[in-house]
């Protein structure tokens, strides 16, 4: 067995003229809380989609807990949980029906699905809205029900694309709590974000992605280096440091003209 939860080699993806992912090699250690950070358009979603089998790469191999995602889907799909960004759920089901559907599709026995769903709904503070259709949920509630669906079959590796995007602080705290409890049991969480404070406070291990390439990787301390915060280190890494927007807008402020 290998100690890497995810092993990516030579991963490429082009959309027409545009190169979204330009040759990524990456090994994500198992049992860690891993942050995949990068500016908008860096290729985070494309990378996560290819790693989870939702998008076919042009080139490269992906292994999750030692199994090839494209050649051994049976072994991989049962071991991972996914919360994609920008894809819908079956929104005309109620929250509880969605969990029941998702769990049963994965072949779990009905009684077990119902038991786990009840607990997840309780912990994620969705019990009051469990019979409401997901289409009427708020952004935070959608992320939480998506997380519940991703956790239901107790995966070994959890991939979350922007799990905190558009989520209110209360829901964010709940999601955090659940994820921390989950990694404490030895499971791996890989999540993407562009909120550095969040990554800094949550993650043990970070990979910085910009323009389809990995710019830095390693433990939080390694990536941060000498910079005072991850935010500063990140801005230097992606080459956005030292830009000052203050000089041209001298008319701004001081009451209406």
């Amino acid at each position, binding site marked *: 067995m290998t100690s890497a939860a995810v092993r990516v080699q030579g991963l490429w993806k082009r959309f027409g003229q545009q190169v979204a992912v330009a040759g990524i090699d990456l090994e994500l250690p198992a049992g860690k809380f891993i942050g995949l950070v990068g500016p908008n358009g860096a290729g985070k979603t494309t990378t996560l989609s290819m790693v989870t089998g939702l998008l076919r790469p042009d080139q490269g191999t992906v292994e999750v807990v030692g199994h090839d995602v494209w050649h051994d889907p049976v072994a*991989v799909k049962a071991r991972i949980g996914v919360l994609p960004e920008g894809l819908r759920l079956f929104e*005309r*089901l109620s929250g509880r029906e969605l969990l029941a*559907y*998702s769990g049963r*599709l994965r072949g779990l026995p009905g009684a077990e699905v*119902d038991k786990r769903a009840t607990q997840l709904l309780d912990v994620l503070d969705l019990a009051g*809205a469990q019979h409401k259709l997901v289409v009427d949920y708020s952004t935070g509630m959608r992320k939480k029900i998506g997380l519940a*669906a991703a956790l239901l079959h107790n995966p070994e590796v959890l991939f979350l694309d922007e799990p905190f995007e558009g989520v209110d602080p209360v829901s964010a705290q709940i999601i955090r709590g659940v994820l921390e409890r989950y990694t404490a049991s030895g499971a791996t969480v890989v999540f993407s974000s562009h909120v550095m404070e969040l990554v800094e406070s949550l993650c043990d291990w970070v990979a910085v992605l910009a323009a389809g390439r990995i710019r830095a990787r390693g433990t939080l301390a390694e990536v941060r280096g000498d910079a005072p915060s991850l935010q500063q280190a990140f801005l230097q890494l992606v080459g956005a440091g030292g830009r000052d927007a203050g000089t041209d807008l001298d008319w701004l402020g001081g009451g209406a003209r």
Partner: protein
Amino acid sequence: MTGDITGTVVRLKLSLLKNGLRQSGGRRAAYVASAVVVLLFGALQLLGLIALRGHAHIDAVVVLLTAVLALGWAVMPLFFPGGDETLDPTRLVMLPLRPRPLVRALLAASLVGIGPLFTLLLLIGSTVAVAHGGAAYAVGVVAVVLALLVCVALARAVAAANIRLLTSRRGRDLAVLSGLVVAIGAQLVNFGAQRLGSSGLAQLAPVGDVVRWLPPASAIGAVRSVSEGSYGIAAAQLALAAGALVVLIAVWAGHLTRLMTSPDGSTLQADTTPGRRERTSGRMARLLPAGRTGTVMERSLRYVWRDPKTKAAWVTSLAIGLIVPVFNALQGTGSVYFACFAAGMLGIQMYNQFGQDTSAFWMVATTISSAHDAYVELRGRALALLVITLPYATLVTVLTTAMLDDWPRLPEVLGLSFALLGAMLATGAWTSARFPYSIPQEGYKNVAPGQTGLAWISIFGGMVSAALLSSPVIAVTIWVNVVEDGDSWSWVLLPLGAAYGAAITWAGLRLAAPRTAARLPEILTAVSKG
């Protein structure tokens, strides 16, 4: 200041039209083509109405025409809420505008476009058709302007009154379904027109006597009254139209003020309905098989009822599958074989299965890891479809047979229906895997831009293949009907058709499953557009 706003809003409308055209060549061509068709149609109507001048029942025809036109204007904003962006006053809510100048500006802007031009053509034609004498023409000018303004104000008032509804989720669901009213209404209009064609325009006269008092038709009615020298009646009719205009504008301005000063309803959360269904798996689940099959069936059946797009597609199929054989039977032109239409129409629902999931298909994709999983998934969907289709197709066939009193043919028609249904399921499953395409969730389009060709290949290629696949059963049917003594053997077609349908469905699912399993990311990409 007022003139400013009116000018600005009219220019805004013009630039919206222009920018809409600039988006793509295809769109420009479509717009120009539809403009030409509409104007041609309008011009022909104009000529036709002028030609009908002096016809005995022309007065009834023109007031009815105006009334129908006004009805069209009233329902338009309900069906096409996104059609005219200047119609949505909530977009202007952040601007420091007073309601009165805004009303004037928006009214002027709504007069720009093909729709108003078409209306204007028809109104002019109607006026010329009934006007006799200088006074009548003078009144006619006032009448045309008044009628056009009433139409436009009606559309605006209805849109403003319903903006809450139109921007809420439930409202948008309703809007998708309301397209059905048009589809089924068109069938009924068609039916009515045929009756009218057989018994003449004289039937319209009594209706016309009432409608000529209803604004905006009353304005056109006034032209005819002047022609006949009834100036008092004409004045009353014009006053009615003018009064209606004032009331409509007042109602519209009232709604506008309320809309612009109160919070947007669309962001308020719909109230929770606790205790609706306490259990996860209700009565339905207990009747369904266990495992993935039952889970997939349950979800599919729930979507038929809960998802507006799916529901609209199903209701259309169910309605047309019933209307075609039954109406034809009613008119005495039918044949029991038309009953196969029900099976054919319902079989279409098997097409583009994954497109119906939208991008939520990822939830299915992450749980399919082998061809067997894909087979069970597709089979579950086909079974859910059969739960509705089999009894319905049988019912339509029996009903048609009863209406035509052609009972000896019942077994063969049923057999043919089942074979056709099987072929549709088989080709539907295969094209779902091979030619998936996105179904946009908002509005009326059923194909995302750029995927129209794919949808055509999928549906029409599939239907032709389905017809070819069921040709053995069709051939046997013909043979039984042609050979002497064949009629005594026609019952064989029922078990034969059923067995053939079942076998071909199984084969289709078996062929489609490995393709589905191998193409999961490609299918997800295809169904995630729009």
